């Protein structure tokens, strides 16, 4: 039976192991944004043996490129972007202690295996609900790569940002199970 869990990073292995696919989570505290270009920069820094702009151990990355904030607002729209574009980068970050990723869409078998190996989860936020999700963001500041514009790494303070566990650290996939329940045509080969 799916449960609702409040999550605040830094997350421990125990926090993550408690989560099962279908669980609803409400994320509060500090999380970091990163899209394609920022991931490439992070991996370049690691390869060069340089420090990263933020701690990864126990942290949550949110795959988002927000729209600009109108004066008086913390942030513009801020819904998730499609996660598979970060798949080639994710296992390295998981090995370094990243505990959760928030995005939309499916992950590769390699990322799912890495989540199992390093004890991490993938959380789905509602794609296209950028205005709604922005209400959960209480503070936003760019902490790295400002030249990337919407792709810069932002430090976000969030309160009860809603998401659902898509992949847990047992290697299970909510998309497969959910779709199988409603499929009326033959399953894909």
């Amino acid at each position: 039976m799916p449960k609702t869990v409040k999550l605040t990073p830094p997350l421990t292995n125990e926090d993550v192991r408690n989560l099962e696919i279908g669980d609803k989570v409400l994320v509060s505290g500090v999380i970091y944004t990163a899209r394609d270009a920022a991931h490439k920069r992070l991996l370049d820094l690691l390869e060069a043996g340089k420090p990263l702009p933020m701690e990864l151990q126990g942290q949550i990355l949110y795959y988002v490129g927000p729209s600009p904030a109108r004066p008086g607002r913390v942030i513009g729209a801020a819904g998730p972007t499609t996660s598979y574009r970060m798949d080639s980068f994710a296992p390295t970050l998981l090995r370094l202690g990243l505990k959760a990723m928030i995005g939309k869409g499916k992950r590769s078998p390699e990322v799912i295996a890495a989540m199992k190996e390093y004890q991490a989860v993938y959380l789905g936020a509602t794609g296209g609900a950028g205005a709604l999700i922005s209400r959960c963001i209480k503070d936003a500041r760019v902490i790295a790569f400002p030249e990337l514009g919407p792709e810069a790494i932002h430090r976000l303070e969030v309160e009860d940002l809603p998401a659902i566990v898509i992949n847990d650290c047992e290697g299970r996939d909510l998309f497969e199970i959910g779709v199988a329940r409603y499929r009326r045509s033959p399953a894909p080969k």
Partner: protein
Amino acid sequence: MREIEVAKVTQGVKQAAIDANYEASADLLAALARGAAAEESESGREIFRQLLENAGIAREERVPMCQDCGLAVVFVELGQDVHLVGGSFEAAIQEGIRQGYGEGYLRKSLCHPLTRANTGDNTPAVIHTEIVPGDRLKLTVVPKGGGSENMSRVHMLKPAEGWAGIKEKVVGTVREAGPNPCPPIIVGVGIGGSFEQAAYLSKKSLLRELGLPNPDPELARLEEELLLAVNDLGIGPQGLGGRITALAVHLLMQQCHIASLPVAVNIQCHASRHREVIL
């Protein structure tokens, strides 16, 4: 011959870009409400509820409904009795996009394909122009999100594959896309023409008002058949499983070469945004 100042084009495109991003159209809201009523899965109904709430917040707070404010595609129907004066027509459209995305606090999502350097103003827009009879100018601004565009495909089928082949390509494209393009989606299908014309038709088909049947009864029947097949996939809202994977399938078709059967599938996310300006 009727003269239209290109400054009016800039003004119209600017406002259309902003309004398209803030205000979900009535046909989209109605389609989401119908989807919410028809969806059997609990998580799917919750997604529909969130999307309708999101549209309300975007409209009230003047914030984009989706942070991906899109690559701006502008469909132009230019009356042949119109004389555009006061400068370059294309530059006027690009200026409207530049101003709209700047003043509207919309995300600038255009970059160099190789260096990935952002152009900073969401230009250049992609412009499609058709010359039509009359003395009016219609501009439709379509902010198109990258996530759904990435899941779109063009297939060059063998003529022998026929309708069954077309159907399998449409359904297969949606199946492969799964949760990635933000379902519930709208599926634009272009059949025939040439390689690029099929893709153009597939995108143009998305301009039709949601809920209106195809004016061609035969195409309307084919659209219904494709919609049933797509929704039988069970992908559902956000891919969590459900009955409503697509809100609609739209089809445009034209003659093609005897050797060819081009089929293009343009996936549109639920944030289906378009605004018309008529001058």
